[in-house]
């Protein structure tokens, strides 16, 4: 500050007596409070110097103006002066503020707002308008962002609920409150558990896969996440033929792999919603099938613990059941988890193709049977896939469909627990498989026999029964012989009715593992004893083993040929005697000539060979029998494997030798 420094002195802070009253009370001045002291100090601030300075400045300014009007003024002079004035005012204000900061109370007597200038008003207004405009713009951005977020949420929900509604068309969708207290939203689950087919007797634990949670993926679409290897499939095979570790059908594995792969690709949003829903349906279907396979295996396990016909458990462990079905055949049923990836699928493809023995290919059997005896037993196993399907079908039909149709049905029929009622599902399955394997072997034997004998025809009769198979072996008389007979008998209609049979039948029926052979044209025991040539229309019925089957068939065929030849001879009026495999013609002077059949199942060229045996009428039978065992007898001639044409010709020659019939 310019000017002289003035100093004011305060009184010492001594209490001076102010007055004394008549009673002697001394009165001192009251102590001023701290605030009052400060106020008094502030009031003592003299601003007169500032006012004087202002007046002086104005005076000088006028003087300068008047004296220097002619001279040029500095263009910034006024601004400098204004700044100086402002500085002074600021100094005062700063002092005031410092005083206030020091907790000095300041009493503002009065303040008048300076009247704003027009430009200041407009500038303030402009600033306010700009500020408000900025505010609205920010609001606009906020609304746009919110709108975009809400639209995305709407789109996500539309996709999610649209997919959920489509899933609900085929699956049971339920709501489930989430356990967390913080989240009050609902979750959705898909319930794959079928509780309509379980009664108290056959109660099964619901699978862990029965409820599947529906989640949201990153795009808002519903997603179904399954833990790896949670799905299991039924695996069936024959021990020694199929490996127990091979995973199930590659088609299913590829489906699951492709579903997983498509789930990964889903993140790229390259798969349309329709395709994704289809894949989800496929995945749920596979889970459903996995649950069904679990139920099937559990039911089989329970039945395995109950004694029933056809069930012979030879091994059991977790998710694995091994059963013996007789004749050295053993099967296994297991639950295996699904494979993990496509690479493993490709590797397993090769392994499974090389490990699985080919199916019912009997052509190879004929080539191999002479070389590898053990391979003969390996072949003839039914298709593994068909067995799995059959197992699932019988379980589904007998346990699920019947349980739905007959809710009051007892558990015995459903599970087949008691052995008294017969085999249960598992027993029925084992018996069916055992029969199938055995019947395949029977068929191999029959075909081997029929292939070697040209006049035998094999015909298969589908029985549509799981434990019964049937074939018929026809012995057909050649058409050339029949035509010749018809021409010779065309004038005799009655004889045509009595004409020789054109075919003989041998029926082979396999029930489980029992072979029944039934054939006509064979002599019965009574006529053999009577040594008569009565027309026997009896039918042989007997059971035999698999090893004896070729011999039985050949014997039956040979006896039918003998029977046919016998009837042919009778037709031409020649009396012949028929033994089991021997047809005897009587010659003159008591000599006999016999046509004898010899069967040999090991003969690969044909099973039936023929001998011509001549007997002298004076020779006793016993001696003839002894001669028969000689090494080289002149009474026997080996004719070899003869067709029916040749046999017929031989017969006619023998007939003519006998003196002929009425037709010669």
């Amino acid at each position, binding site marked *: 500050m310019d000017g002289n420094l003035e100093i004011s002195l305060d009184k010492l802070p001594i209490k001076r007596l102010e007055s004394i009253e008549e009673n002697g009370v001394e009165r001192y001045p009251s102590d001023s409070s701290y605030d009052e002291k400060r106020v008094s100090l502030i009031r003592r601030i003299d601003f007169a110097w500032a006012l004087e300075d202002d007046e002086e400045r104005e005076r000088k300014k006028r003087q300068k103006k008047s004296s220097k009007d002619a001279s040029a003024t500095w263009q910034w002079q006024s601004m400098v002066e204004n700044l100086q004035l402002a500085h002074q005012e600021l100094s005062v204000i700063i002092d005031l503020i410092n005083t206030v900061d020091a907790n000095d109370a300041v009493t503002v007597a009065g303040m008048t707002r300076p009247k704003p200038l027009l430009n200041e008003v407009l500038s303030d207004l402009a600033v*306010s308008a700009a500020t408000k405009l900025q505010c609205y713009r920010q*609001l606009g951005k906020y609304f746009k962002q919110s709108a975009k977020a809400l639209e995305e949420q709407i789109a996500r*929900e539309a996709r999610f609920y649209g997919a959920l509604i489509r899933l609900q068309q*085929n699956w049971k969708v339920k709501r489930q409150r989430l356990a967390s207290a913080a989240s009050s939203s609902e979750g959705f689950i898909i319930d794959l558990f079928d509780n309509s087919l379980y009664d108290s007797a056959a109660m099964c634990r619901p699978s862990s896969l029965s409820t599947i949670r529906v989640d949201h993926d990153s795009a808002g679409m519903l997603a179904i996440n399954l833990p790896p290897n949670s799905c299991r499939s039924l695996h069936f095979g024959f021990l020694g033929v199929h490996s127990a570790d091979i995973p199930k059908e590659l088609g299913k594995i590829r489906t699951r792999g492709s579903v997983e792969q498509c789930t990964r690709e889903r993140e790229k949003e390259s798969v349309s919603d329709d395709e994704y829903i289809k894949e989800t349906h496929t995945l749920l279907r596979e889970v459903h099938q996995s649950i069904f396979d679990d139920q099937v295996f559990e039911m089989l396990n329970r039945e395995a613990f109950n004694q029933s016909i056809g069930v012979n458990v030879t091994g059991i462990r977790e998710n694995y059941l091994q059963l013996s079905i007789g004749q050295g055949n053993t099967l296994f049923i297991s639950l295996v988890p699904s494979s993990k990836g496509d690479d493993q699928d490709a590797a397993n493809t090769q392994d499974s193709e090389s490990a699985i023995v080919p199916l019912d290919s009997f052509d190879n059997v004929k080539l191999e049977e002479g070389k590898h005896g053990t391979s003969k037993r390996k072949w003839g196993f039914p298709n593994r896939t068909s067995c799995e399907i059959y197992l699932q079908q019988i379980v589904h039909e007998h346990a699920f469909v019947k349980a739905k149709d007959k809710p009051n049905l007892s558990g015995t029929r459903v599970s087949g627990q008691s052995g008294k009622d017969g085999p249960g599902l598992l027993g029925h399955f084992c018996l069916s498989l055992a029969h199938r394997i055995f019947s395949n072997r029977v068929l191999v034997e029959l075909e081997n026999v029929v292939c070697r004998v040209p006049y*035998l025809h094999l015909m298969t009769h589908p029985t549509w029964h799981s434990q019964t198979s049937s074939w018929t072996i026809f012995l057909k008389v050649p058409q050339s012989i029949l035509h010749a007979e018809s021409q010779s008998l065309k004038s005799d209609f009655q004889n045509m009715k009595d004409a020789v049979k054109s075919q003989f039948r041998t029926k082979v029926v396999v029930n489980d593992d029992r072979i029944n052979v039934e054939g006509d044209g064979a002599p019965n025991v009574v006529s053999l004893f009577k040594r008569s040539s009565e027309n026997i229309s009896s039918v042989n019925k007997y059971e035999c083993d698999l090893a004896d089957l070729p011999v039985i068939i050949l014997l039956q065929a040979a006896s039918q040929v003998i029977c046919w030849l016998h009837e042919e001879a009778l037709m031409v009026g020649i009396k012949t005697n028929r033994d089991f495999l021997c047809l005897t013609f009587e010659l003159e002077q008591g000599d006999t000539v016999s046509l004898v059949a010899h069967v040999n199942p090991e003969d690969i060229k044909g099973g039936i060979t023929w001998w011509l045996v001549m007997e002298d009428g004076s020779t006793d039978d016993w001696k003839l029998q002894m001669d028969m065992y000689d090494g080289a007898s002149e009474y026997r001639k080996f004719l070899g494997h003869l067709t029916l044409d040749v046999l017929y010709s031989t017969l006619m020659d023998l007939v003519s030798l006998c003196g002929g019939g009425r037709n010669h």
Partner: protein
Amino acid sequence: MNKGTGAGTGPTAAAAAAAAQKQKTMMQRVETDIANIVDNFTQLVNVARVNDPPVRNSQESFMMEMRAARMVQAADSLLKLVSELKQTAIFSGFASLNDHVEQRTTEFNQQAERTDRMLARIGEEAAASLKELESHYYSSAQRTHDTA
């Protein structure tokens, strides 16, 4: 959302009453949210005037932000309401669900019957083909030549 107006006792009446109450509640929520949006938007428009004191403008800017947030919140509430309605439609449309389930059941049963008939026909044709093939094979010259 109307589940009928059946009067009387029983679970159906109770369910109808619950549905009516729920509908009423939802309508109230809708009205509340819509009114909220309209009011806030009205206030936003009303404070568009520029006032002299800058302090008031600042005050109004805070108020505008608050009202905008309320509008967005009301819109979000409406969206949640729509979700609830969709869930109700999914889980309460028993008539359409039952019809669809029956239709699918019928389709599957028909498909099962068709499959069974087809399998039976395939079996019959296979048996007939087998019989024909066997007769042809055993009558063929190749077979007789092979065995001759």
